[in-house]
């Protein structure tokens, strides 16, 4: 009888040990944007090389100037 009680108590006592943690998962890692999508033109803009950060940054700066700076076009 006593042994049964001890085993039962031990089982209850250890029950929490089997629980999996319920903490939120960490955010998945996101690759750097200059790595590109791996797709060919026309889905990927020309004028830069995927994986080359400098050329990607220059591409975005050039695109911003050419596409959005109308004073540069007109004057």
């Amino acid at each position, binding site marked *: 009888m006593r042994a049964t009680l001890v085993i039962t108590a031990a089982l209850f006592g250890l029950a929490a040990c089997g629980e999996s943690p319920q903490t939120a998962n960490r955010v998945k890692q996101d690759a*750097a944007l200059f790595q*590109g999508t791996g*797709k060919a033109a026309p889905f990927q803009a020309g004028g830069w090389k995927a994986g080359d950060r400098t050329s990607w940054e220059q591409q975005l700066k050039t695109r911003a100037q050419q596409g959005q700076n109308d004073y540069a076009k007109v004057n």
Partner: protein
Amino acid sequence: MARMKFICDSERCIECNGCVTACKNEHEVPWGVNRRRVVTLNDGVPGERSISVACMHCSDAPCMAVCPVNCFYRTEEGVVLHDKDTCIGCGYCSYACPFGAPQFPAAGTFGVRGKMDKCTFCAGGPEEHGSQAEFTKYGRNRLAEGKLPACAEMCSTKALLAGDGDVVADILRNRVLKRGKGAEVWGWGTAYGSRQGGQPQGQKS
């Protein structure tokens, strides 16, 4: 490269909603969700102004601060993104955001809030760049394609500028110098912490 930023030039915005349409089309945003929208101030009154509003990708983003599951992250370019697999749709970010950027699709039968959706600066999310999974969850990843956000590129009057903060600030500065007015950039101080005209020293926004 400086941080990626949006500027809406209220002197130029004509409330055409081209930016809203471009965004919805590019990312196939569902009914009931508008990642970008045009707000008109003093509508019908002479001198009314319209501004295009979306997530401003704040320097010190309140949404990131209040998220209980820490689903937000910031890219090296300063774009604030989130992981929909981690988001629990609690809505805290929508209460914290000064721009009303976080959106919640009514996904369930009884209008249950789904995962939060917001402007990604056309930078996708934490999935493989250009993959179907990324497109389905976050929309197209134009930055990884070497392009700028569709809303700004489609803006007919170039009121909405997006890109490297130094470049877009330089474009606006040039405009202001030429026309001699309209230097006030709505939301800039709130999002990026810079001092605006007429604002006392030491105030963030």
